[in-house]
């Protein structure tokens, strides 16, 4: 059993390394090269993890090779457009100027139902609202509606609303993040005041407290029965 634990830890760390290499993308947003990598890496690790008779190296060496290949391909993809097009493909314009490009749909094996479903998911129930629909290489659909269907920006309405600021967490599940507090130029005295104004005695009673650049505070008190 000890062997199983150690082997699992080693292989798990290797998979984590591989997934970290993929970056912050979600599985559904992977490019073909990354998708293949994600598919293979888990299977490679699973076999030596379950079968003690297979040397650990039989899992580690292919994973290492894949990691190196993925790394090489990702760097080369950045450098060469031609290689990027070859490995990851190019986006396909499925709707152009409101017209469905049927040849492009067939080429991508995309049915009308799938297209309409994707459009509905993007908030366009009527295809007549769409000027361009582009099937990206990661399988996502980008939709550009006609100008008349787009939301009106504030500037067009002669309005000048305040720019949003980024709220930062200062209390996370009862723990005060002093570093964030200091970065914002605030101190414990200020924090105590905010807690008091929220009717709280201790930071431990707070589930979430954030403060933005205008020192606007959001406070969510912990529920007692959670």
């Amino acid at each position, binding site marked *: 059993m000890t062997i199983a634990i150690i082997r699992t830890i080693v292989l798990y760390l290797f998979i984590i390394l591989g997934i970290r290499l993929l970056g912050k993308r979600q599985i559904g947003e992977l490019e073909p090269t990354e998708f293949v990598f994600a598919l293979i890496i888990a299977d490679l690790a699973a076999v030596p993890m379950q079968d003690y008779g297979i*040397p650990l*190296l039989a899992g580690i060496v292919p994973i*290492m090779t894949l990691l*190196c290949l993925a*790394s*090489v391909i990702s760097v*080369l993809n950045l450098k060469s457009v031609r290689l990027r097009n070859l490995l990851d493909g190019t986006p396909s314009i499925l709707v152009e100027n409101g017209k469905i490009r049927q040849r492009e749909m067939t080429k991508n094996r995309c049915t009308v139902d799938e297209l309409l479903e994707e459009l509905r998911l993007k908030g366009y129930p009527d295809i007549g609202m769409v000027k361009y629909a582009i099937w990206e290489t990661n399988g996502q659909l980008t939709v550009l509606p006609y100008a008349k269907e787009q939301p009106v920006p504030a500037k067009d309405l002669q309005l000048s609303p305040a720019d949003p600021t980024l709220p930062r967490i200062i209390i996370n599940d009862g723990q005060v993040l002093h570093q964030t507090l200091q970065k914002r130029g605030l101190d414990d005295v200020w924090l105590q005041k905010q807690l008091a104004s929220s009717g709280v005695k201790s930071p431990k009673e707070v589930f979430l407290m954030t403060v933005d650049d205008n020192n606007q505070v959001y406070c969510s008190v912990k529920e007692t029965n959670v």
Partner: protein
Amino acid sequence: MKRLWISVALLVVMLAGSFLNYYYIKHICRELTDTLSSAQAYAQEGDWEHSEQSVTQARSAWEAHEPYFHVIFVHRDIDQILVEFHSLGELANKQETGGEFAAACAALMSEINLLYEMDALNLENIF
């Protein structure tokens, strides 16, 4: 670019390591089969004492390299070869003359040879 070169370097190191490993394993296996061949030759001449000595020598050499083999090869194959070494030693000890020793020796040699042959760079192994 640093990431690219590190990855390429790692790939080259792994490839070089696999080649070195292949030649190292081949060298060990050749030594083992040579010793077993001489054991076979001694047995054919009826010199069972030297034959048994050669088998013991080959088994000791095998056992000395066993931890390394366990890291590289499927454990079942390695254990099987050790079992066969033991039975070969027994056959040499009992001075089996009915060709049983020669057959067991030949089987063991071919199993040892298979260890490095499956890592040889050829189309047969790739596909």
